[in-house]
């Protein structure tokens, strides 16, 4: 079953970096996952977070307010 990865962020540089990193990790490791960028602030607020970017994996908030490293992303996905 594929994972659902969401990146919450209003479009700041940090959020873009995070998205790019997640895409890299998913592609390099052939992970079956759907990557969704959530840019709508109303939708972001449903996750009750205070700082962006936020990495949500299968509706679980994993990392918020900072850009994760590729290693961290990989660990969270496998």
């Amino acid at each position: 079953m594929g994972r659902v990865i969401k990146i919450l962020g209003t479009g700041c540089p940090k959020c873009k970096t995070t998205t790019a990193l997640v895409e890299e990790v998913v592609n390099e490791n052939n992970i079956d996952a759907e990557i969704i960028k959530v840019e709508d602030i109303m939708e972001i607020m449903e996750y009750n977070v205070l700082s962006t970017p936020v990495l949500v994996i299968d509706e679980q908030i994993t990392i918020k307010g900072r850009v994760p490293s590729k290693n961290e992303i990989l660990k969270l996905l496998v």
Partner: protein
Amino acid sequence: MFDWIQKIADWFVYDVVHLDRGQHLAEALNFFIYDTTKILLLLFVIIFFMGIVNSYFPIDKVRNFLSRNKLYGFEYLMASLFGVVTPFCSCSSVPLFIGFVKGGIPLGVTFAFLVTSPLVNEVAIGLFIGLFGLKMTTIYVISGILLGTISGAVLQKLKLERFLTPWVKKVLENAQREQDLFIAEKQTFSQRLPIIWKEVLSILKGVVPYVIVGIAIGGLMHGYIPEGFFEQYMSKDNLFAVPIATILAVPMYSNASGILPVVQVLVAKGIPIGTAIAFMMGVVGLSLPEAMLLKKVMTLKLIGIFFGVVTICIIISGYLFNIIL
């Protein structure tokens, strides 16, 4: 404290590159090496220290603290103090605003945080120590905190809830003080360190180009603008200097790293320190991009009032500095 950096700069300029003492280029290069090394070092230390504080005291904890505790009037000061230790990225300002308001934190307290956070941050403090010394830094930090506190309290008195955008009002109505599900990450220091370290490096990487360009421009101005050049235009007695500097600064947007080295030279060349600080606070504290983001949660009128009150507070503190210092 920084003698050894001066020695390194001297050694490099006179012994390695073999420039002659007193030569214009030699002095400029010496100044540049000394200043950049000193400032980057200070930035590193302070960003690292703030990173540790922040790792143990993330924004979620700040929110919970402010929404749970009855602080009897001190909440503005507390929010403002938290603003200092919390790194602020303007793109987080909207989620942060909603999150605070949802947590039952009064609007004025939220504003106090929003004002101080960009104004007094790790990068500004590091640069300030390097360029102006400890005494000026303390004054800047304290006035930044007071500025947030006072603007927040004033904004609260104005009862601005009615100027929020409709969907935020709705959020407000449904706000129960969420007993939050925030579970502090239980990590040891050695687990935190790599994450803090990465943050430090990424912040440094972001500001280093600005710092270097800023110091280079500052260095050039140092050499070519005559001493006391600005005094004739912007003396302390010129009552319009502070408001004009502030109002010019608000639409400008730069992080502290680019603007501070230039401000330092302006001061050295005769611009009164209060006028310079007002300018700097206007640039760093308020900006058009931030206003654009806040439009999602505030009506234009509210943004206007918010910026207006803060601008007035900045102008007042500019005058105060010019009188005291």
